[in-house]
């Protein structure tokens, strides 16, 4: 029974260890490449939870020290921001 349990690495997008290892086997050697192939790290938390796990899977597979695996490129916003919050002050409406 436990053999059937899928090991989720990216909880937001429900991406399994198997899918990530497959992406690494197909040539992805950075966290961003794994993201583009699998969507791991594209969800609500933007990889804040899983990127280190992904980096260590890459390190295991490639034999690189985990510190040498390229981390994801940091992107704004630091925390999710509503569209209306982002728009505030634009087009002459709302509070600047």
């Amino acid at each position, binding site marked *: 029974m436990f053999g059937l349990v899928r090991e989720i690495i990216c909880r937001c997008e429900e991406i399994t260890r198997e899918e990530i290892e497959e992406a690494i086997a197909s040539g992805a050697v950075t966290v961003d490449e794994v993201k*583009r192939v699998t969507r791991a790290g594209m969800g609500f938390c933007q990889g804040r939870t899983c990127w280190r796990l992904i980096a260590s899977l890459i390190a295991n597979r490639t034999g690189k020290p985990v510190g040498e695996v390229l981390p994801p490129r940091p*992107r704004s916003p630091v925390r999710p921001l509503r*569209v209306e919050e982002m728009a505030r002050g634009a087009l002459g409406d709302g509070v600047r």
Partner: protein
Amino acid sequence: MRKLPGGRYDVVVVGGGVIGCAVAYFVARRGLKVLLVERAGLGSGASGANPGFLVLSYRESPLALQMAREVLMRLPELERELDIGLQAERTGGLIPVKNTAEEQAVAAVIDQAQRWGLSSARMVTSREAVELEPRLDPGSIVAAGYCADEGRINPFRLVYGLACGCQRLGATLWTHAPVRRFHLGTGPLRRVEAVETEDGRIAEAGVVVVAAGAWTRELVRMAGLELAICYERGEAMVTERTGPLVRGIITDGEFFVGYRDNRNLMRTGACLTQTSSGNVVVAQATTEVDGYDIRNTYQGLREVAAKAARYFPALAPLQVIRCWAAVTPYTPDGQPALGFLRDVPNLLVAASFHSAVGLAPAVGQVVSDLIVDGRANVDLTPWSPERLWREGGWSGGGGC
């Protein structure tokens, strides 16, 4: 400096974006030995940063329209060949307009598309627009352009499908391998004899294809030629997943008014679509840039968010989870660069396409024909890189 033999290839493609991968795939399909060289990861430039619009109605030439239609027609076949779900959908595309100026400009674009044979392009009333896009605020527009044959695709899937496809056909991929220099032959016609990467590998090449988007000008410069190519940055963002909100691809009518008449200004408008995962991608703010500048700006994102929420009020409470920017090339006449360079006869340039995901397979096909047969079945004269030769370069603006 380390020097390593990297092998001998019929064709070395520089650039692992959607155009480079398509070229590598179609050339490999013709039985040639191919090497694809990419500076970072596959699709790490503009090919991985666009909303995957399959555009027809506002293609910039009859040739681009013809190629885009061919791509749409052949996508199911390509999907089978590549054995990957491309998440391509014929969703229809809408160009909302807010005032008379925009309406006139978009009507002219639609009229032109019809004259070029796209009978499915038409203007619709705001009432029809809302039937097509039920969450669109009818009060925010006066009319819209519409084309039912447009749609979208997952650009990542297309890039990886083509890259994996060309590897299955025997092509070699070097990723994280920026080009350091070209080895040029001597004599009146300088051929690129080999491509050397930063890690010291040297690949001998029969033909070199530069399909390098935002790095095209610099790579061609390595062959001693200066092309009139400038760069602009497009900014975008994506929301959390949500239920059905946007059906098709939306391009703001604002982008068709006063296009590029002032190159120092940032241009913003709401271009959006909802991906098959349910996230809404919202673009874009465009700014002229000198180099590879992919920073986001508060001003740009703020205006884009406001304009998008004006068309689709249901967007307002959604969380934006990620912002990004990409750099794309453009030319003085707005047309792409596709063809061999006269002074470096084994160097072919394929860059500066608009909405390149919707053209890439056709570009790959045409380039493979040029390389293998010495000719293509379409007249590529308007796209010849020869028109872009500039002594002393070009600083952008002007006739664009």
